[in-house]
């Protein structure tokens, strides 16, 4: 069996068995119970929620992120095993949403970690969430959901952006911008 066939088979299998960990940062987590339970039953696509990032394949970022929360989110993301996928939930992860002018909220999640698919809306309805997951499965099948490869490739740049967000002194930011930040 060729390597290509093998990875295609692995992709076909793994798209039907996405285990997710939801990082409940905002109100987005409120829409998950109906998606998981009898009303919209996500288990029919093989998706279940797992308790720890070690066991999970999909990271759901449900809602806005404060700078402090981002630190924890990066830890959770780095604990997950490859291949791993990130779903950005609601307009907060896209452009800050209703926190667009807040001083301590992350505006664009894709600057800090590779996001495979976004769900727009404030809040997205369960139908939208299921639609996004079906699209994600399609992307995995075609081999387009390669966020985890991007994180390996541009690790330095992502780390730089994360450090910029975490630093609160102006001289620290300057050091990082000059490119010799540790």
């Amino acid at each position: 069996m060729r390597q290509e066939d093998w990875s295609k088979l692995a992709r076909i299998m793994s798209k039907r068995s996405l285990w997710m960990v939801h990082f409940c940062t905002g109100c987005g987590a409120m829409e998950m119970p109906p998606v998981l339970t009898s009303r919209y039953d996500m288990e029919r696509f093989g998706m279940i929620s797992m308790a720890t990032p070690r066991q999970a394949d999909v990271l759901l970022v449900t809602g806005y992120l404060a700078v402090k929360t981002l630190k924890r989110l990066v830890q959770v993301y780095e604990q997950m095993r490859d291949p791993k996928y990130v779903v950005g939930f609601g307009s907060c992860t896209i452009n800050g949403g209703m926190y667009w002018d807040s001083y301590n909220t992350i505006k664009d999640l894709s600057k800090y970690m590779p996001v495979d698919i976004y769900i727009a809306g404030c809040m997205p309805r369960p139908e939208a969430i299921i639609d996004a997951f079906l699209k994600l499965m399609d992307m995995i099948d075609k081999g387009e959901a390669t966020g985890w490869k991007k994180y390996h490739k541009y690790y330095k740049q992502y780390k730089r952006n994360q450090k910029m967000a975490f630093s609160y002194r102006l001289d620290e930011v300057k050091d990082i911008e000059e490119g010799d930040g540790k």
Partner: protein
Amino acid sequence: MVMNIITSILVMSGMVALGFAIGMLFNGIARKVVARIHNRVGPPVYQGYIDVFKLFSKKTNISHGWIFDLAALFSVGGIALTFLFLPVAGVSMLSGEGDLFLILYLIAIPALGFALGAGASGNPNAAVGMMRALMMMLAYELPIAMVIVAMMVYYNTTSLAGIVAMQSNLKWAIGIPPFLIGALVADMALQGMLMEKPFDIPLAPHEIATGPLVEFGGKHLGSIILYKMMGTVVETTLFVDLFLGGGVVLNVNQFGWFAYLVNFIVWFVLILVVFLIAVIINAVFPRFRIEQALKFYWKYDALVALFILFWIFSGVMV
């Protein structure tokens, strides 16, 4: 001689493969049944195969030292060995005289391997989960051991294959009054062994983040899940061997290969029924606390088991 050894090794690996295949199928069936009880559609019955394949195809594996790596192998190997010692549909691969004691010891080995891995991971949730798992073992092994001692006294043998042989011609142990109650006691202990609700205290995903499994992922988690799936087959087979005649309905000497086929089908149906009882109880119950579980097993289950033991020793009505 050499041919014989090669043939038996092939047959044994075939049996282990069959055990794993049935275990994965049972996982899918359990999830489908629970989903239907919850008025959901549920995953397809082959979901177990997909999950295991996916876990073994994960790209990175984070290890916590060589004990953590070995623990996964320890569990899978231990459960496969236990399966080979059990008479499956009257066919026993490795069993000999007095193997019922050996099986009671062997059934604890994979759980200890699991404990080693959880300990090596160093996560406090894993330590809490392991503590609970060992306490649960202490709780459910007392009633089931008493029932098994009663069976050894009644059948006058310590061989599981012997007990299965004496139940042939449909003279199942469950038809004898003390062992009908004994089967109920053992079924409650089986619920704890399979870690189904209300006794899924060691795992408890919402309290201690799946307990011992907390640091497992990728191929390690795949091995542990394989062990869990095979464990359902081993434990239900032990129950069927003890109380339901091991699935032997046709005499092999009389009917040849056709008897093997029928016996294996009957064995499969019987373990499926025993497993489904556990799953249906699992679907409708919440979780006990650890001291409630201990109280349940030692106060009610063990008391009934003690009563059965006295009943058998006194020799009344049997």
